């Protein structure tokens, strides 16, 4: 009996090792991971230099885990076990049936001091950034509207037992520090109230707001800029992209959970859209809707300079300094304005851009996660 048990132990152990070793060698390499949305390490090149420097060792380690057979399945097994241990999260992503949210971020203090995976943020650093920004916009002659889209964990506070230690302090700080000239529009109370009413304002599996969430922001911008808001649900045509698993889901890889749906509205206008000099088909890139990062269907993803031009001579220009949250907001605004959208991180010169494009107004969209994890906002000039 004991002999049988021991033989079985050895057999199952060796078979397990051999099967995965062989599968690893036999299965074709995947250059890209759909679930994680990143390029994977492929077989590293062997040379005397890489051997001696140890880079071969590092790359081979990475190669093994990136190309490991049933990789996605194993990753899900791990996250399921983490939930089984009642941790309520995996890889820093909080889990509930209806919502996922990242809880901890790399809090930025200075280039030399970043607190990785902190539940907090450096309030004095953020405050200093906001003050610099306040000083900058105070000198501008055009109207400014500032949107700081809140993080999922702040909007969906009610979905988790996790108790954010700083409460809404970050958003209080924004209202307190930003001068009137910044045209700061509070979003958190509206989005949170809508979320608690069961409205689909933020994605379940992604860190962005949904088209409805972006519409909430659009309404606020419209009233601030004195334009007449439209109601797309009644008059515009609508396309839905289903099976969207976003960044948060990719980071946590929970084995169960519903995908999100992305809604794209079309007002029927013929816009000329360019991104970094190239002309796009329109406001939406439907090829990207079939890829793994479906959110990039909005304006074809991140670009340094994006322009949207409509028909008619009397259209005014709105200059947008943005991160990706603005991509789902711009289709609404394009109904009213020609848009010049600059990536805030790579195009920090606000003053020069105003001189160049002579906008009717400036809109700054920079989400709260970006605000606390890097210094770009304070570097605007």
């Amino acid at each position, binding site marked *: 009996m004991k002999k049988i048990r021991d033989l079985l*132990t050895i057999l199952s152990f060796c078979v397990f090792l051999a099967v995965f070793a062989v599968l690893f060698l036999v299965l074709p390499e995947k250059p890209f991971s759909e679930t994680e949305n990143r390029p994977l390490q492929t077989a590293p090149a062997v040379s005397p230099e890489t051997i001696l420097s*140890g880079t071969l060792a590092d790359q081979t380690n990475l190669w093994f885990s990136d190309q490991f057979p049933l990789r996605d399945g194993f990753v899900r097994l791990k996250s399921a076990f983490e939930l089984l*241990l009642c941790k309520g999260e995996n890889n820093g992503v909080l889990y509930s049936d209806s919502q996922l949210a990242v809880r901890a971020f790399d809090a930025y203090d200075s280039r030399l001091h970043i*607190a990785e995976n902190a*539940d907090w943020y450096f309030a004095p650093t953020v405050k200093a950034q906001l003050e610099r920004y306040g000083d900058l916009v105070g000198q501008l002659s055009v109207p400014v509207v500032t949107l700081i889209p809140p993080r999922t964990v702040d909007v969906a506070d009610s979905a988790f037992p996790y108790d954010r230690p700083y409460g809404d302090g970050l958003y209080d700080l924004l209202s307190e520090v930003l001068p009137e000239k910044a045209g700061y529009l509070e979003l958190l109370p509206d989005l949170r109230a809508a979320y608690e009413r069961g409205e689909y304002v933020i994605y379940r599996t992604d*860190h962005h707001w949904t088209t409805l969430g972006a519409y909430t922001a659009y309404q606020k911008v419209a009233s601030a800029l004195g334009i007449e808001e439209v109601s797309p649900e009644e008059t515009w045509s609508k396309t839905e992209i289903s099976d969207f698993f976003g960044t948060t889901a990719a980071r946590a890889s929970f084995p169960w959970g519903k995908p999100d749906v992305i809604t794209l509205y079309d007002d029927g206008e013929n816009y000329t859209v360019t991104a970094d000099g190239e002309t796009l088909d329109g406001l939406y890139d439907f090829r990207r809707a079939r890829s793994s*990062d479906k959110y990039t269907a909005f304006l074809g993803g*991140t670009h340094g300079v994006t322009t949207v031009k409509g028909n008619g001579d009397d259209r005014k220009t709105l200059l947008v300094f943005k991160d990706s949250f603005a991509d789902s907001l711009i289709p609404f605004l394009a109904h009213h304005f020609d848009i010049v959208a600059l990536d805030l991180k790579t195009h920090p010169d606000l003053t020069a851009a105003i001189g160049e494009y002579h906008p009717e107004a400036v809109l700054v969209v920079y989400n709260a996660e970006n605000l606390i994890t890097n210094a770009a906002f304070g570097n605007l000039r």
Partner: protein
Amino acid sequence: MVFSSLIFIFAFLTTTLAVYFLVPLRLRNLVLFVMSLLFYGWKEPKNILLMLVSIVSAYAFGFLIEKYRESNVRKAKCFLFLSLAVNLSFLLFFKYFNFFASIFGAKGIPELTLPVGISFYTFQIMSYSIDLYRGQAALARRVIPFGTYVTLFPQLIAGPIVRYKDICDQLTSRKESVEKFARGVRRFVCGLGKKLLLGDACAALAERLITNSEFSPTALGAFLTAVFYTFHIYYDFSSYSDMAIGLGRMFGFEFPENFNYPYTAKSVTDFWRRWHITLSTWFREYVYIPLGGNRKGKFRTYCNLAIVWLLTGFWHGANWNYLLWGAYFLLFLIIEKAFLLRFLEKSKVLSHLYLLVVVLFGWVLFFGEDLTFVTDTVQRMFFFGATAYDSVVVYDLLHALPLLILCAVGCTPLPAKYFNRLRERCSAFDLLTPVFTVLLLALCTAYMVDNTFSPFLYYIF
């Protein structure tokens, strides 16, 4: 290469096992030797050279020591010292040069990195030379078995520290067997699980608590940091020994045990008989007893203890905190020897509690390469410059409770005891152990795959 990596298990171990059992008996040591060199040089191939020099020098001096051992003790002693000097000089240079340079205000060599495992294999090599001189070990006549002894990959990097005399018979005539291999598999997988499921999780939580303490220092957070460190080091280190012992068995070796439920000890004296046993044994045998041990009066005993414990601390790392850590335990050992042990025997609960508190603070010192970490953590535990708790710490504590309970129970002999009892009483359950083993291995694989799982946050900007 680390044991808890995919490349080790699915490439290195798989190949090594296959080749080892396919080649004729006489080539098996050579296979282990070559594969161990590959294992060792995987990340930094140039370290192989250093280790080979150590091996060859001890091997060559071995012949000289043996030659004069009986005829000319002075000469034999001379060669012993030379052999030890060569080996120790590598260790001293790579591990301690920069530390001493900084003490004397000289410029160190920043590029100097510590070759992995040098502290362990140097001690193993030294044990050979000394035992040979003492006539307790036979001369290693062939270089391959001796090289295999030093480089043997299961215990090369982090022990157990195997003395040559304990293993020399196994080097030349060991019996691989089904029973041994199976026990090895179970031990290895169990160690892997301890490391990946418990040890790493505790490390991650400690890390998070430390990060958050920068923003909001709390007494509860500081205390939990120490608790997680306490579990982390136990599950990290003892699991390494488990894996080493398990791997050794697969190849027919029996290594000495290195841990014996240290957190169930009831005094510091007892603790050090249960924690990193092979290191304590080494120091006792090659330092404490040669110095006279406890046979030369109270004062000499305390002096000898002091030497051993400062060396033990220093062996762990070239930094003040390790010296302090050694001194810290020395203090308790002396107090216990002087009078405390008698009192500790009176109450099991109190003595156990005392041990846990001493060990807990000991690990804070151990992890505090930056001494401000030590002072900060300890101060915060006593509410200096800290609030009692905040919502994140409480949240993390509640969500880590199952893990903490698992860790606490896992430190005791209970799981092994009941598991084995169940296996004895119910043969069907016993037959299921292969299933449990593979399931745990699969779960460990999942954790290893996820270790480098780093999704690219594609669209944040």
